[in-house]
């Protein structure tokens, strides 16, 4: 079989969006996936497409990526099973300090051309009656959206396979110049290799400072308790971005099915699959503290996902100089779904030499190579 121009390692939304973008650029692509499309972090993801504003670089990629998602959904390119819900995000302020933080965020987002507005306590109660009283207000980001990532991965895989993309049902166990070694002992040569295997990418790239940041989610039964937006506490910003220790934050998402998806937690415990009951208990209790009606909703299932986390909370998108011909597309932590379309466009532009959609510099993986060198 002929070698593809590009071999994409990883059949999650990031890898498949990248494969699709490359194909649209006229490149022959093969995808290697050990399980099935969406089986990894994509299958555990919340599916919240959200603009985050920790840094100008984060805003820039989220803004571009969200616009691409909206165009994708509006253009009818994704199936109904993708459960698109343009519900927007409410960032909840419980006290004066959070109100001030919200005011700064509204300013930062508006400056970046993102619609955002402040809702006072009364407007918030109207917008989201299920919330407890006594909140100071909230920042509404109306153009954020919610989707069901496994169905998107499946649709992308179906599309790629229908277009003749070679799908390799194997696990990559090692890399060598210009080729990937598979678990069946064979090797696939390619002009370039894109590593989009989420947190598992670290196993293929010695010294890549990428760690799995574990998260728990709980989904409820279908319920008449209605939540109209993705709800996140602004306190999330204080707790969720520290690398050490476990943290939780109130984060509830309405699903198109009528279920509620309850998050969120972050831990650095490797790929431990055992559910942390205390953390789940605290996460759920926090959800009840914000939306009291959740207390009487039946809980259906808990699961764990492993987000690929980097030291500076920005993704790794671009060539990896230590392995010529190898590109990295991971490190999005909890924003892999959000950032996937722009990640794909950046990788495609890099490989084809075309104009990138946004400045790729802040995401180039070589920025973490010195960390690697220092460590070894």
């Amino acid at each position: 079989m002929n070698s593809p121009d590009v071999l994409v390692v990883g059949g999650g939304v990031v890898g498949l969006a990248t494969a699709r973008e490359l194909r649209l650029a006229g490149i022959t692509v093969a995808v290697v996936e050990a399980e099935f499309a969406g089986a990894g972090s994509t299958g555990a993801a919340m599916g919240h497409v959200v603009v985050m504003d920790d840094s100008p670089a984060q805003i820039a990629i989220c803004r571009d990526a969200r616009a691409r998602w909206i165009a994708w959904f509006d253009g009818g390119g994704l199936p109904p099973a993708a459960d698109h819900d343009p519900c927007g995000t409410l960032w909840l302020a419980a006290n004066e300090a959070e109100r001030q933080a919200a005011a700064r965020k509204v300013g930062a987002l508006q400056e970046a051309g993102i619609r955002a507005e402040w809702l006072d306590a009364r407007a918030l109660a109207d917008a989201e009656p299920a919330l407890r009283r006594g909140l100071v207000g909230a920042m509404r980001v109306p153009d954020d959206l919610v989707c069901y990532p496994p169905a998107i991965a499946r649709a992308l895989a179906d599309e790629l396979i229908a277009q003749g993309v070679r799908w390799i049902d194997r696990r990559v166990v090692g890399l060598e110049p210009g080729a990937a070694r598979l678990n069946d002992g064979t090797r696939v040569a390619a002009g370039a290799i894109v590593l989009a295997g989420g947190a598992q990418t670290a196993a293929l790239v010695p010294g890549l400072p990428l760690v799995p940041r574990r998260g728990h989610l709980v989904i409820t039964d279908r319920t008449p308790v209605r939540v109209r937006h993705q709800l996140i506490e602004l306190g999330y910003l204080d707790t969720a971005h520290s690398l050490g220790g476990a943290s939780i934050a109130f984060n509830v998402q309405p699903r198109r099915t009528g279920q509620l998806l309850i998050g969120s937690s972050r831990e650095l415990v490797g790929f431990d699959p055992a559910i942390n009951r205390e953390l789940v208990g605290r996460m759920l209790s926090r959800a009840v503290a914000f939306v009291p009606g959740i207390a009487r909703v039946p809980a259906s299932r808990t699961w764990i996902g492993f987000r690929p986390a980097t030291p500076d909370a920005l993704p790794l998108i671009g060539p990896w100089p230590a392995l010529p011909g190898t590109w990295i597309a991971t490190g999005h932590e909890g924003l892999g779904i959000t950032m996937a379309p722009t990640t794909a466009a950046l990788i495609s532009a890099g490989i084809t030499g075309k104009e990138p959609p946004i400045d790729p510099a802040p995401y180039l993986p070589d920025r973490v190579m010195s960390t690697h060198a220092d460590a070894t």
Partner: protein
Amino acid sequence: MIDVVIRVNGVPRRVPGDITLAAALWRLDQWTFRRDQHDAPRAPLCAMGICYECRVTVDGVTGVRACLVQVREGLTVEVPHD
């Protein structure tokens, strides 16, 4: 065993006090316990707490399995219309 009065969609109904809510609903000729996503009627399959087909709203709590609940005086239950 003495009878009790339960409310089915707000209507008081008298049933024997030592039967399950699933049995009580069938006694009242209620054959639809829930409706599926295509609005088709569903009713108990396993009758022993496994299948969740008998989910009804009891005293305001959704998702209660009628086959595991014994009726009691004053119990309220919401079911779809047959």
